[in-house]
């Protein structure tokens, strides 16, 4: 793709307007209830300007950052991009009673054209993994495909990491290497803009962006490199699938079960977790049933339940299932780890369970945290 361009900070609104002008609903980080979530942004003023996040196991706070105009100072919030494509509740079909039988009516989502402004490298890695799960298998999911069909991705390379981030260990960031239309690096007065697709090229042409000068290009490179260099949290990924398979009987699972509430928060904020229940709801008159798929979690009591038996009746077995799948068996299923290193499961765990520390304990090593 062509050489990096420069988007002056003041022209961020022009980028948003150009996206909206092409019929896209633009979503980006917005502040809500003391956190940051992806939601519609009509202008740059809707972004959490000048705000930064302080994250730690079981803790999340927003505060004023050093630079008042900074648009992407908040690394991430509880909400990933997942719900926009793998909807938390997706109606699939309606079944209408007809005599002693029934008729099937397929239901399709009214999916908007979506432009994501501020997707992080870990978000893009997670999206690529969800694409693999829902689109590349033998039974592609039509509803996911409909929501994913017309999406523009404007990435932001991370120039600071939260305390809970470990994307360097997972080799997913902090630089977005692929899967974007545009990628921005935020500098004090401008964004360095890289293009990753024809749509991205066409956007920079429409905005008439000049090439970025060498000093700003170097500055942008350095900031992302510094972010990687300063990332404190690590996960040792070496031989993880074999390690987890060999440690199914480890005493550590009982230890973490003492701290885990089995509340499902980690699986809800995880950008790759894909478990869902197939739910049928019948109207009170019995004439119509709607079948939908709803997010589910391996921490729910019913997840491994069949009539008369539950294969994972205790928290010990459920946490073991989650971690073994996420970091281990997922690799055999989908060719890569289920973890992108975003750290959300650490921050949003009410008791601050840190999977990097759990892995270190399973390895019999001292804790690896910062």
């Amino acid at each position, binding site marked *: 793709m062509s050489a990096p361009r420069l988007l002056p900070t003041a022209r961020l609104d022009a980028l948003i307007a150009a996206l909206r002008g092409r019929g896209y609903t633009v979503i980006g980080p917005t502040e809500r209830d003391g956190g940051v979530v992806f939601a519609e942004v009509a202008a740059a003023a809707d972004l959490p300007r000048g705000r930064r996040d302080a994250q730690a196991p079981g803790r999340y706070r927003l505060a004023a950052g050093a630079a008042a105009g900074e648009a992407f100072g908040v690394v991430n919030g509880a909400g990933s991009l997942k719900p926009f494509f793998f909807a938390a509740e997706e109606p*699939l*079909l309606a*079944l209408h*009673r007809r*005599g*002693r*039988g*029934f008729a*099937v009516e*397929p239901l399709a989502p009214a999916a908007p054209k979506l432009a994501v402004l501020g997707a992080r490298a870990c978000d893009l890695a997670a999206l690529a993994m969800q694409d693999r*799960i*829902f689109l590349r*298998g*033998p*039974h592609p*999911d*039509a*509803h996911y495909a409909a929501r994913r069909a017309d999406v523009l991705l404007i990435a932001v390379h991370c120039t600071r990491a939260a305390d809970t981030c470990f994307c360097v260990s997972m080799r997913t960031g902090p630089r977005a290497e692929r899967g974007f239309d545009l990628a921005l690096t935020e500098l004090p007065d401008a964004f360095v803009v890289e293009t990753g697709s024809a749509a991205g090229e066409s956007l920079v042409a429409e905005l008439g962006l000049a090439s970025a000068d060498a000093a700003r290009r170097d500055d942008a490179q350095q900031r992302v490199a510094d972010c990687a260099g300063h990332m404190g949290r690590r996960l040792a990924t070496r031989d993880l699938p074999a390690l987890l*398979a060999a440690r*199914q*009987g480890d005493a550590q699972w009982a230890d973490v079960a003492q701290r885990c509430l089995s509340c499902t928060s980690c699986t809800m904020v995880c950008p790759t977790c*894909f*478990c*869902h*229940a*197939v739910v*049928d709801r*019948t109207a009170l008159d*019995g004439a119509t*049933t709607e*079948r939908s*798929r709803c997010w*589910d979690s*391996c921490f729910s009591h*019913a*997840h*491994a*339940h*069949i*009539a*008369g*038996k539950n*294969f*994972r009746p205790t928290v010990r*077995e459920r946490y*073991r*299932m989650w971690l073994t*799948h996420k970091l*281990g*068996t997922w690799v*055999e*299923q989908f060719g890569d780890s289920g973890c992108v290193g975003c750290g959300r499961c650490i921050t949003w765990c009410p008791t601050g369970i840190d999977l990097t520390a759990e892995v270190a304990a399973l390895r019999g090593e001292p804790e690896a945290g910062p």
Partner: protein
Amino acid sequence: MTPYALHPARIVARHDDTPTIATFTLRFTDAARRRAYRFALGQFNMLYAYGVGEVPISIVSDPEQPQHFDHTIRRAGRVTTVMLAWRVGDVVGVRGPYGVGWPVEAARGRDVIIVTGGLGCAPVVGVINYIFRRRDAYGDLQIVHGVRTANDLLYRERFDAWRDHPRTRVYLTADQPDRTWRYYSGVVTELFDELAITPSTIVMMCGPEVMMHHAARLLGAKGVAADAIFVSVERNMQCAVGLCGHCQLGPHFTCTQGPVLPWSAVRPWLAAEAR
């Protein structure tokens, strides 16, 4: 079309096996679907009771007659309780077939051992019937069936009839036998010393995971190769297409890679989770 879409099928026959078990014969109402439908023995369909729910049930009839198919349903929970009230002429929802079935082709010419435990032996009944319909194509057949009490022995006449076939031996055992019990006592693995194991032996098992785990270990120790032992794993299958996550056993989505899996693939995971 979503993989969760259902297709109407009519119940054309019903046979009550016991007060809580019935075998239903189904036919798709749509002629094109009926003509196109093929299944392998041991694959399953998702069966839907309108307004109540959906459950995975294995197909037990012969795959060479795919225009109609049989499901043996045991009353086990909310949905199957409603299914036991299904009558001939009712139209129900079906999607499938799903998964990987029994290795009945790979077993041709080989000695076969069938091990079942508890009440859920319907999937292997299909295998046994399949072999008897092609008896010359298979070697010696040994059927081992374990129950807890004499009352749990369903199909007693069926086992007794199988016993009369040439080159066939049937071993029945009860964990807690009473005065009326005239077969072996103990758990199924205690019978394994009686079995003739040859280099060509292939084993097919279904029943509680913990039984299969111990039985496979013992048969492995007696010289049966780990990839010649097949287990039928019944987990929580909701989507049946490897997407919803509930049925996982280790790296396997048992709905698409199972329900019949070689023991070599599931051995460590059964050891961790079988119950």
